[in-house]
């Protein structure tokens, strides 16, 4: 079975031409989540100015769905306030891609986790203590 037979055009498009690959300049929030032993690692860097995410970039080791959701989540968070960004769920990212094959839904969790980790890191660095994740 090729899982990618079930990838939507949007997933393929983001996989082929991922947006925002790299490391954000002057990043003040970094999230590294996943584990290479599980097949996926995502690193998300964000730059927050006046509580708004002005830049987000990613690097991902993972399947096509993991790369596409990484790309999509960077597009979704840029321009949002930190609080707004934290409301983005993995489901929302998957929906924005026109859906993911069922066995690939777990890959989108990586994007949500990376976002939370990056925001946590930003809040810690800037002295805020209300952590985004439990």
């Amino acid at each position, binding site marked *: *079975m*090729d*899982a*990618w037979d079930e990838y939507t055009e949007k997933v393929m498009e983001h*996989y082929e031409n*991922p947006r925002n*690959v790299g490391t954000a300049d002057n990043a003040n929030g970094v*999230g*590294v*989540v*996943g*584990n*290479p*032993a*599980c*097949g*996926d*690692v*995502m*690193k998300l860097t964000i730059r927050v100015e006046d509580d708004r995410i002005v830049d987000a970039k990613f*690097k*991902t*080791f*993972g*399947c*096509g769905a*993991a*790369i596409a959701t990484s790309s999509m989540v960077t597009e979704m968070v840029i321009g949002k306030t930190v609080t707004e960004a934290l409301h983005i769920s993995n489901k929302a990212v998957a929906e924005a891609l026109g859906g993911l094959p069922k*066995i690939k839904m*777990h*890959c989108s969790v990586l994007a949500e*986790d990376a976002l939370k*980790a990056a925001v*946590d*890191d930003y809040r810690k660095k800037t002295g805020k203590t209300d*952590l985004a*994740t439990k």
Partner: protein
Amino acid sequence: MKPIYMDHHATTPMDPEVLDAMMPFLTSDFGNPSSSTHIYGRQARVAVENAREQIAALIGAERSDEIILTSGATESDNLALKGLAFRQTAGKGHFITIATEHKAILDTAEFLKKQGFEVTYARIDSYGVVDLDDLRQQIRKDTLLITIQAANSEIGTLQPIADIARIAHENGIVFHSDAVQALGRMAVDVVKDGIDLLSISAHKIYGPKGVGALYVKKGIRLQPLLHGGGHEHGMRSGTLNVPGIVGLGKAAEIAGRDLATESQRQLQLRERLRHGIESRIELVRLNGHPQQRLVNNLNYSFSFVEGESLMLACRDVALSSGSACTSASLQSSYVLRAIGVAETLAHSSIRFGLGKSNTAAEVDHLLDLLQKQVKRLREMSPLYDMAQEGVDLENYAWSPHDHHNH
């Protein structure tokens, strides 16, 4: 356009000559070989016996009645192990195998364990080759069978089957070998190699799916899995799959006929691919034995790149990967894990299975794709960056929940 097929360990396309041989037996010559009262039956019987001889010739069997026709190698492997186990009156006895066998062996062995038999996995080295000293050590008074494959379907590693056979026979033990991947790619001779039981599958040698055979050396008794009309000397009941068997026979004949030229040709393609990968792409690792391997197999880990994403990038070519991301179970390849390949590298592995249809131009096209896409995916890989920065990836605190404290 369909991708270039380079996954010949999974299955092979049927040779048109094989289809031609089968066609009459699907239509006009439809008789049941058990019908002895008319021409229809006799015709079918002649065709089956001819196929049996073709199969025997491919593996060097002295007698065609040593070939038991089955529904494929899964059944052949089951028949070899269970057939030998259950000829014992009680659930007693010991089996030796290795951890990189096909699931048809491993799951059967685990089933037998539940029935009271004992199974030992002999040590293998990091290439997947069985350790003969350890194999000798594992032999017990009640060892019934050693079953070790001729060649591995993922990493291509060949086993020293003649040596294993000698060790088995010195100790009065039966030797079974799953030769599914080896046939048509290297010479296999049950007499010279000393094989007592040998599994064959038609669809891996350009024959039809759903048919195979078990070579059973004269004098070895097996308990049948299927009871009924007493076909195949009572060892395997069921009306014979005449078209399939004729197809297997023809495929065996062609495999023997073309062995020298085709194995040489595929070896050259393999070396072309190997040199291309190793000279054009850095940080790659060959899985399996560098020399003792199938002429049509390569298995590489492309560090810091996940296998599914690489196959997706190279989807012009049909390949397979040991990455967990490509399996429904989300488990990486048990073969790679058994030879001690780190999880990260297992996730980065791609298996290349060359076959008759492949050409040097296809190999070159694949090399261009691989070079370009590995580079693209590495530029996207956080692991590649971390490695460049000197981070020890094996010992990095990866827990996804520790991001509060770094």
